[in-house]
């Protein structure tokens, strides 16, 4: 009886918390539609567990509040687990932002294709498809090797390579952390302290790879430069 009561209480708490977040989300949407972007931003910030829609909307609010670096970072963060349509919307907004700021980021065609393709599959789906094609490939290798017919193995091998590549991309994205340099130029130090030698400077709104962090400092990598920057100058995405 006691166990049942505890379970019921836990479910209620979780449900209430969920509904509270949803309520905040809807309220934030209302503020946004009324063009009260500052209030919408504040409301979205209060959501405990933020989905990519929340990050996306935060980016929109920051854009309207002319906080462009934050808008860029929020939109980048919204890319995680985003659908193809959501990715399109994010890409559109980033394009608008870059146009507004007179920046032009060159993204190669191959990267765009890989990004779009990877958005169609979750990591689990990619794993499943890869393993399926992998098993089939081996099975058919045994069968068709005896019959000396290798034609069927070519598309299957191709499928295995593609799905394997997709899994690698997905794991790579999941295992690496990235950050966006916020408003000002950030100085890159050789160590986690401003007493260390200065390595260089990184422009705002640049995406960098975050390899490590120590207290209030992050170790980042950008264009073959590795160094430390204050954590408050970055927003992890």
């Amino acid at each position, binding site marked *: 009886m006691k166990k049942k009561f505890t379970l019921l209480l836990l479910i209620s708490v979780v449900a209430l918390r969920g509904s509270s977040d949803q309520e905040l989300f809807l309220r934030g949407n209302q503020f946004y539609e009324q063009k009260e972007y500052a209030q919408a931003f504040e409301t979205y910030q209060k959501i405990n*567990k933020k989905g990519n829609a929340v990050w*996306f909307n935060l980016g929109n609010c920051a854009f309207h509040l002319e906080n462009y670096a934050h808008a860029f970072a929020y939109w980048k963060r919204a890319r995680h687990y985003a659908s193809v349509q959501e990715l399109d919307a994010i890409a559109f907004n980033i394009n608008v932002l870059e146009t507004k700021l007179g920046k032009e980021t060159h993204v190669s065609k191959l990267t765009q294709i890989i990004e779009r393709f990877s958005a169609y599959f979750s990591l689990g789906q990619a794993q499943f498809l890869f393993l399926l094609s992998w098993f089939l490939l081996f*099975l058919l290798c045994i069968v068709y090797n005896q019959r000396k017919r290798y034609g069927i193995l070519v598309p299957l091998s191709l499928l295995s390579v593609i799905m394997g590549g997709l899994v690698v991309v997905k794991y790579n994205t999941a295992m690496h952390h990235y950050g966006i340099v916020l408003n000002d130029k950030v100085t890159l130090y050789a160590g986690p302290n401003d007493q260390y030698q200065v390595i260089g400077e990184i422009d705002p709104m640049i995406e960098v790879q975050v390899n490590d962090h120590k207290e209030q400092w992050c170790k980042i990598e950008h264009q073959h430069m590795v160094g430390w920057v204050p954590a408050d100058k970055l927003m992890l995405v």
Partner: protein
Amino acid sequence: MDKIAGKFGFFIIILLCSITNHAQVMLRLQSTKGKPISEIEMGQPFVIDVSVDDSQQPEKLSIQGIEKFQQFGRQTNMRIVNNHKSIRYMYTVATEKPGTYTIGPAELVIGGNTLTSPTASITVTKPSATNASAVQTKDDSLKIFARLSVDKQRAVVGENIQCKVEVFMLDNSVALQKINEPEVTGCVLESPIDKGTTTRTINGNKYTCREFLWNLALTQAGEVTVPAFRVNYQIMEDEEDDTDGNPIHAYLTFWGMKQTNVQSKRLYTNECTLKVDALPESDEPIAGIGHFTKFSAHAKPTVVKEGDGIVLTLELEGDGNLPRIETPQLQELPSEFKWYDSKQYLVGPEQNNGVPKKCFEYIIQGMKTGEWEIPKQKFVYFDTQTRKCKTLKSSSIRITIVPATTNKLSTQAQKNETNQKVTATALDITDNISPINKEGWYPRHERALPLWLFVIFMLIPVLFWLFIFTKISQLTRSILRVSRRKKQQAFIHARKSLQYAQQRNEYRKLYAIFIELFAERFALPPAMISEDLIEQRLRQAGVSDVHMKEWHLFFSAIAALVFADTATQYMAPPILFRRAQQWLDYFESKV
């Protein structure tokens, strides 16, 4: 009493008669400085002076012909000197139309009687000085004068001409009020630009020069005359005539409070004439006139979704009639594109490295996905430096139209909004971001195998394949080993079998002994061993024809023993066993 009354009556009559006899109305025309005039330039104010001596205040005053003039003011003066009262009415008037005017008579009604003045004539003339030299007012001598000049004496239709009016003022007693533009034919005057004030020395006098610039757009060929500009000014003049003998004026002059009279006056600049040529014939319509240096095009963004707006800007740089150049039509745009002209604006030379620029903005929409090219745009103009028609071309622009998403984020509303705002500015377009996402507020979690488990799963077929391969190879190896052993021991086995058969005199087993021997040596099943195969292999082993013939005879004999039991007719069994032994020895060395 009657005497007194009679004397008073007589006095009244005498007085009235004297009033009637002495009241005299005069009408005079004079300059604003009080000098009598009979001729005046158009626009110059003059005074109609009506005076009545020895009279009461008139009940009514009317001047015939005054309505033809523009009135600037009316003054009334009354003087009583030695009981002589005189009243003056001064009307300051002017006219813009030249001609001869008759003013008067002035009619005054005093005590029911009407007094009439004589008439006066005045000739209004056009401004006398119209040459390039400065116009000087007669009255104000060199205190103020104005000059009109143009920057080109010869031009083509549509060319930009600059008219400059310079007003020179000698001192602070002259104040410029307004410059009136004349009506011009064959050209259009744009709003003036006040270039400010400078100081210049002319004939040893320091003048304050105020400059005004007009852009003149020539609209027709031929000889175009820019008429004189009218300059309105105010001048402060000392009261000269009336101060003499006036104690009040003397008193004010003594205390530095000399009275001054501010007069509003006008003067005219000279005229300018220039020759306007027609534009030369050209295959394509001439869009501009001047000296243009650059015509460029750029679009933002260059990658858009279907139906989304792109801001295409054409920029024209150089000196010429930029303000009057209309938004050019976009040439040879792919039919899959819609376009609308959005706006045009001028960029001053101070904002563009000293070169004026005009920007034409268009909103274009790609309605079909794919890679497109906005072709080079042409701008045909008449070059005022080389006096020839020239063409400037912009570069082509590549545009990528991607499919419109069916996402809720890029809803139809957004498209409609884009369409509605299609004439909006570029800035508005760039602020038009995707609407907020109203779904998926909750964090999404992907279910995936842990990396270690995934690697294990991935290795399963590899390991399985390796296992199978190992097993097969082991089996193959063992088979090969057995067959090799059998091969090596085939002759031993054959000799033993032969010995055994010989001891028991089982000569029919000779056939089987040789078949087994060859089967083991050739690593084939016994059923596959035939006479032809044996012959083929023996020949391959280098057995001679003689031996082959003998072997054939022997093999036929042992086969016949098995299948027909007739061999003993040709060969006795001991011979058969001996021969068999010999063949084994021979084959051991050969096969």
